[in-house]
Every structure is written in C-alpha cells, then in structure tokens.
C-alpha cells in the first residue's frame, strides 16, 4: 500500500503543472532576468572608484565609525569603491558642478539623523552611491533610535547592522567566502523555490481529509492508514521538490554561471533542508482546522511572500528592523531561517553560525511535520 501511494503521489507531484511552473519555471525565468540585469550593472561599474565629497558636521551620536567605514569600502580586488574628499558644503557644490575634476556626488553628514546625497545626474554611479547612502541612512536612524530608547541594545544592533552591510558591500577584514554582492538574490531565489514546496506539502493532507476535498472523502472512507498515507505522500513530494531545487541550483551555477562561492556541497545541503522545511510548512498548514482550500492557499502565499519580505529577501534591512522592533517574528519566520543559513554561508562560510541556522531549519521542519502528523489522526468531523 505504501509503495502504491508513494508511486502515485510522486506522479501527481511531478505532473502538477501549476506547482512546477511557479516553483521552477518562474524561478528560473526570474534568475535569468536577474543575471542579465546584474551583468549589465557589472559591465558598467566594473571596479570603478567613485570620487565623492563628504560634508561632516558635529558628531552628536558618536558615529565617526560609520564615516570611516565609508572610506574602507572596497571591491573584491582591493580597489577602493569611494575616493572621499572632506570639504565644506560650498566647496562640495562647486566640485559637483565642475567639469574637471568631476565628483559623482556629495554625501552630507552634517545631520546624522538626516543623511543626504546630492548628485547632478542619474546613472550607475549615482545608483551605487544612492544604495550606499540609503543603507547608512537607515542604519544611522536605527542607531540613533536605539541610543535614545534603549542604549543597552546598541551592541546587538551594531552587530546586526554589520552583517546587513556586508550583503551589499564588502568591508575590509570581514573575510566572507563570496565576494559577489548580487549572489544574495540567487540565494533568495533558491529560498523561494524551497518555500514554494509548501504548495505541494499542503496537498497531502488535502488529499486524505474528508473535510478538505472530494478525493479526501474517498481516501478517508478507505482502510488506508492516515499516517502511512501522509508519510508516503510527504516522501514523494520531497523527492520531486528536491529535484526541482537541485535543477534550479544547477541552472544558476552552470547555465547562468553564478558564483555561489566555494562551499557548494553546503549550498546543496542548505537548499535541500530548506525544501524539506518548505514542504513541512505546507503539510502543517494543510492540517489547520477546517479552513477552505482558498484560505489555505492564502495563508501559504502570505507565508511565502510575506515571510520572504520580512526576512529581507526582497528589500534589504527589513530583517534588521524586525530584529530591533519585534525579534519574535524572525524566530518564527521559516523564510528568515533559510535566509540566515544562506547569509552565513555567503559571508562566513561553514561556521558555527551556519550550523546553528541548519539546526534551526531542521528543528522547525521536525516541529511542523510532527504537529501535522499529530493533527492528522483519523477522526470524524463535526461538519463537512
């Protein structure tokens, strides 16, 4: 019976066109678009040092370190990203408008609670500067707020900000494995593929519970063991979803030539465990009460899209803000766990932090799966 259920659940997962499209085709297409977009950015801004002027003011909050960090930002080959000249605002404006020597922008640090960037033309250089200033603007506001509200948290916040900074720019001395700042987007795509597996996970309880589907009614009327049915379904779904995740990874690595760094086996391991977590999340949601199919799908969409957003997979720094404002969200958000594991690999290689993230992913997977199985006990329903 187990083999028969497994065989057909495998075929169902493999032939489910919607699931395959969203978890594989869509992700590959998005990756291809990212790849083209980033290639063009690379070509335009290949290790160019940007001349900028910095206008400093009173360092009311003691953030001179941040100004120094700006000077230390480097490309992979050691080339400085910014060539900074400290001048007053009048001089800075003159330089910005002058044809020679040309500066790309003015970073106005006179008010650390309101860092400004002045440029006089749009382009890749202003985009890079805007990205850097935007990060520092948010960080300074977080630091200032922390100093004002709870100075005891400042060290934790600074540590968290330090990690976030490295996702986009590489600072001397942090020593991460992968120097490509855009690889994060591909990690995010892998995380997305993994979390999309939840859509397949939710179908397993749907297909064997009388209160969820007609097929569920038929299976519930049969003598098949519910737990056995679900375990065989989970196994089949996992194999198909593992394959999809691996295909995605291989496509990114060998077709798009994305440099995932030197720890490929660990990237594969993380991807597979992330897929396991994705399926288990869907499996758990599939067992919650007597929700309609649409409600379940909405919950999963919220988990995949909302969880992705909250973990910073779409907009950087969100995770840090949440860490300050409401850290519990980062603890329970499965997407954040996956993002953290990839981030650890990306920045620190195989480290304690990476192992901690992996243990956390496995822990969440076990919790979601066991809860799902506990809720799946054969029972009669109050209404159908």
């Amino acid at each position: 019976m187990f083999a028969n259920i497994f065989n057909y659940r495998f075929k169902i997962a493999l032939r489910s066109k919607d699931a395959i499209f969203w978890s594989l085709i869509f992700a590959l297409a998005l990756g291809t678009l990212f790849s083209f977009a980033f290639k063009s950015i690379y070509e335009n801004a290949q290790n160019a040092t940007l001349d900028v002027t910095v206008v400093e003011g009173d360092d009311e909050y003691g953030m001179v370190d941040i100004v120094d960090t700006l000077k230390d930002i480097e490309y992979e080959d050691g080339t400085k990203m910014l060539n900074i000249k400290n001048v007053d605002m009048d001089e800075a404006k003159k330089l910005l408008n002058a044809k020679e020597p040309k500066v790309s922008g003015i970073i106005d640090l006179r008010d650390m609670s309101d860092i400004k960037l002045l440029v006089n033309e749009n382009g890749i250089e202003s985009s890079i500067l805007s990205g850097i200033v935007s990060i520092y603007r948010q960080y300074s506001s977080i630091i200032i707020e922390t100093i004002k509200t709870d100075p005891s948290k400042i060290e934790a916040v600074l540590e968290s900000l330090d990690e976030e900074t490295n996702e986009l720019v590489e600072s001397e001395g942090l020593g991460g494995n992968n120097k490509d700042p855009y690889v994060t987007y591909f990690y995010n795509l892998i995380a997305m593929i993994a979390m999309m597996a939840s859509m397949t996970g939710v179908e397993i309880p749907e297909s064997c519970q009388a209160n969820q589907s007609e097929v569920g009614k038929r299976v519930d009327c049969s003598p098949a063991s519910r737990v056995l049915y679900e375990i065989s379904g989970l196994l089949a779904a996992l194999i198909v979803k593992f394959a999809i995740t691996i295909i995605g990874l291989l496509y990114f690595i060998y077709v798009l030539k994305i440099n995932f760094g030197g720890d490929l086996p660990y990237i594969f391991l993380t991807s597979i465990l992330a897929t396991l977590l994705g399926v288990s999340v869907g499996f758990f949601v599939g067992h919650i009460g007597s929700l309609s199919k649409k409600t379940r799908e909405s919950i999963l969409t919220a988990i995949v899209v909302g969880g992705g957003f909250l973990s910073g997979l779409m907009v950087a720094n969100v995770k840090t803000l949440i860490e300050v404002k409401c850290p519990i969200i980062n603890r329970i958000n499965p997407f954040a766990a996956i993002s953290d594991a990839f981030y650890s690999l990306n920045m620190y290689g195989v480290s304690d932090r990476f192992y901690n993230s992996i243990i956390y992913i496995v822990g969440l997977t076990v919790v979601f799966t066991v809860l799902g199985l506990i809720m799946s006990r054969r029972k009669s329903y109050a209404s159908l």
Partner: protein
Amino acid sequence: MSGTVVEINNLVKRYKELIALDNFSFKISEGDVFGLLGPNGSGKTTTINCLLSLLSYDKGEIKLFGEKMTPSRRDLKSRIGVVSQNVAVFDELTVYENVDYFCGLYIGDKKLRKQYVEEALEFVDITDFRKFYPKKLSGGLLRRLNIACGIAHKPELIIFDEPTVAVDPQSRNKILEGIAELNKNGATIIYTSHYMEEVEQLCNRVLIMDKGKKIAEGTKDELKGMIKNTESIVVNVRHLSDETINDIKGLHHVYDVKYMNNTLTVKCSGGKHNITHVSEYFEQHNIDYDRIYSELPTLNDVFLEITGKELRDKE
C-alpha cells in the same frame, strides 16, 4: 434469512441549532438495493456521512455488518465502496492510474489489484479511455470513472450518492444497469437520488426521509399503498364548464379534480373501474373527448404526497 448489513438506531446529528437527523433509524438487509429518498436538506447525505464515520454524531448507534462502526474500523471500511455525487479523482492521473490508486488503498496484492482494476474498467466500459486524463473525459465517462474508483475493490456494501447527476441518458442507463449487476453479484446497495424513476427501477426497498426524520419505509408497493391516490384518470378534453368539473368531483372514489391546458386529471382513492365511471359520465352528458387513460401512482406521487409540494431551498 439474510443478515443485516446496516443498522442505524436513534441517530441524532445537530449542526448547532439545526437538527439534521432526529432519532433516525433504519436497517438494510444483505442483498437489498435500498433507496434513500428525501428533498434537499432532508438529511440523506448527512446520514451517509455518519454511516461512513466521516461525520461525528450526537447520539445513536451505527452498526455495519453487525459491528459498531467507528473512524478507526479499517476492517469494516475495507468492505464498503463509496460513489459520491461529486467526482473524486486526481486530474494528474490517467483513468487507469486513478482506479489503480484508489483500489490500492484496499488491495495490497499487486496482481490481484491489476485484475480488479481491469474488471472495474470493463464493468463501467471505459477500458478504451484508460490512458486518458480526467479533463479529457465527457461528463458521462467521468461519472463512470468515479464509479470504477468506488467499486474496483469489490466491496460488499456500496453507497451511491446521486451518481447520475448531469449524466446523458445513455450513460445513465449504463450506470443503472451496472448497479443492478453489482447487486446481482452479491453487493448490498444504498442508493440516493432525486430521480424517482431510477429508484423505482433499481430499489427493492425505499425509505423516504424529511427534516431528518423517517417519513415512510417499505417496498415500492407498500409505499404506494400508503398514499391516498390509487389511480389518476387523465382525459384530453376541450371546453369543460365549472359545473361539469364539480359533477366529476362528486363521482364515487374521486377526491381531487384538476383541469388545465385541456387536460382533466381525476384523482381517485380506492375503488375499481374508476375509468369506466368517468368515461360513462362524459358519454351520458354528450361531451366529446380525445383520449382517456388511467395512471397508477408512481414513486414520485408517493414522494410528493408524503413530503409535500412546497419548494425546498436548502441543500
């Protein structure tokens, strides 16, 4: 004497304030084709779902094959087949795979299962479509696939919950013949339907329920004997006066007369030669008519008389 396959005693099922089943009881003997009839919302599907242990109930007892039915009674479930009113198959599996999948939930032995699946496909006559996916099948074929999935494991008790809804006459005929054959081969059948002629054709015992209660139960003849109407005389005649209609109402054994669209329907309760009395009246009064004939009551008459003619707006 044949054994009791289904025994339901004093079943009570409430949905908050609504009493869906109100001390509902019945028995089905081995070999019966048992028709469960009732208007929308009468409690038929609730009864079936309780019987299958899909629904919990507040009071009462359900026994199948002489033993108490509970959600964990796999031994009892393995003897039951269900064909629900909604098609329950996987779109991602072919016809053959669907039947094999559901049969596999009951039959572990691969060889035996293969034989059963082939027999089920042949039984509902969809062997030629074995490699088709459900989305490519017509409504009738889909219903037949639905049946094959429910009966492939050769159950002793088969529950058909309105299996012919939205099916073309040919497919319906095929399905009804199939059900009769299953019964001939030894299966006990529970059949729910809104189509009275199907129940009349198939069932040897019928239970009519309404508002969660049993209204009537018996063989078809027993049920027909329970109602007032024993014969309807239908006359195709033009231009009848109110006086004539009142005269006919006064004839012996006549209890109701209706005249619409040049058709006079005279309902009689008891008595013999009612058609002769009506035709003699017309001849005596020199009233020409085109055609006169007698109709015996159908299950539909029984159903309407017992459950009333008002519209039901709840499923």
